[in-house]
C-alpha cells in the first residue's frame, strides 16, 4: 500500500514552487500554436476562434530599474475612470490606513474603505470619494483600483451628508438587533468619511 510513498516524498521535497504570485501577471504572451495549426488542417477556409488571451494585452515585465511613473487603471462597474494613466502617486484609502503608492511599490492587494482616493500627477491632484472596493498593486508599477461607486468630491452635497450623519447617529442609538446596529454603524462610518472628505 505504501509502495509509492517514498517516491512521492522525494518528489515533494525536491519540487520547487514555480507559480508566481497572483498579482504578477504573465509578462510574455504565451500563445499555444498547436490549436490554430490543428484548426487549419480541419477547417482551412475559416479563421480559428479568438480566445481571451488574444484580446488581452500582456502586461510588461517588471523592469530592473524603478520607472518614474505609475500606471493606474481605475474602474467602476459602469465606467472606466482611468485607463493606463501614467501618474506620480495615488493615495488609496485602505482598511489598514491611507496607503501611498509610488512607482516600484511592492506587490499588494488592499481592501478599500469609504474614503478619498487622490491621484497625484505633477502639481495636479484629482480626488475621488470611493465607497469601497479593492486595489491591486503589481510589481511592474501597475495599479488596478476597483470600486463599487466613486464620485469626484465636488459632486457631494454637504447638507445631505450632515442630514445623513445625524439620522444614522440617531438610528445607532435606537437600533436593537445586530443587523440594525451594523447598518446604522455603516451609515455613521460612510457619512463621517464623507464629512471628513469635504472638510479636510
Amino acid at each position, binding site marked *: 500500500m505504501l509502495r509509492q510513498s517514498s517516491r512521492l516524498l522525494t518528489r515533494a521535497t525536491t519540487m520547487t514552487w514555480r507559480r508566481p504570485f497572483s498579482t504578477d501577471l504573465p509578462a510574455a504572451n504565451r500563445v499555444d500554436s498547436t490549436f490554430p495549426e490543428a484548426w487549419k488542417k480541419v477547417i482551412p477556409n475559416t479563421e480559428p476562434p479568438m480566445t481571451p488571451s488574444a484580446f488581452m494585452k500582456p502586461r510588461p515585465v517588471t523592469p530592473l530599474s524603478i520607472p518614474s511613473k505609475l500606471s493606474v487603471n481605475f474602474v467602476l462597474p459602469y465606467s472606466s475612470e482611468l485607463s493606463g494613466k501614467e501618474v506620480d502617486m495615488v493615495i488609496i484609502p485602505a482598511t489598514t490606513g491611507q496607503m501611498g503608492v509610488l512607482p516600484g511599490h511592492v506587490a499588494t492587494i488592499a481592501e478599500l474603505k*469609504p474614503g478619498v482616493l487622490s491621484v497625484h500627477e505633477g502639481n495636479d491632484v484629482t480626488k475621488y470619494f470611493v465607497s*469601497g472596493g479593492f486595489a491591486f498593486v503589481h510589481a511592474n508599477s501597475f495599479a488596478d483600483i476597483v470600486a463599487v*461607486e466613486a464620485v469626484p468630491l465636488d459632486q*457631494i*452635497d454637504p447638507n445631505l451628508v450632515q442630514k445623513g450623519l445625524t439620522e444614522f447617529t440617531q438610528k445607532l442609538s435606537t437600533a436593537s438587533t445586530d443587523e440594525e446596529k451594523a447598518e446604522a454603524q455603516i451609515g455613521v462610518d*460612510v457619512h463621517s468619511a464623507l464629512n471628513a472628505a469635504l472638510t479636510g
Partner: protein
Amino acid sequence: MASNAAAPFWRSAGMTYITYSNLCANLVRNCLKEPYKSEALSREKVHYTISKWADGKPQKPKSVNFYRLQNQ
C-alpha cells in the same frame, strides 16, 4: 499573510461583503448633488417583470424590484 484580526463588525452581524459594499455605495449615491444623484440612482435601478404560468397561459405580468426579489 493571514490576518489574525477579528472579523469586521458587519461580518459579525451576518452581512456578506456584497451586502456591505452595496450599502456603502448606496449611501454615497444618496449624498450626491442633483442631477448626479438621480443619474446614479437610476443607473443602479434593476427590476424584473414576472408572470406566472397557469393552465398553459401566462398570468398578468407584474414588475418586481430587484431588492425585493432578493429578499423573497
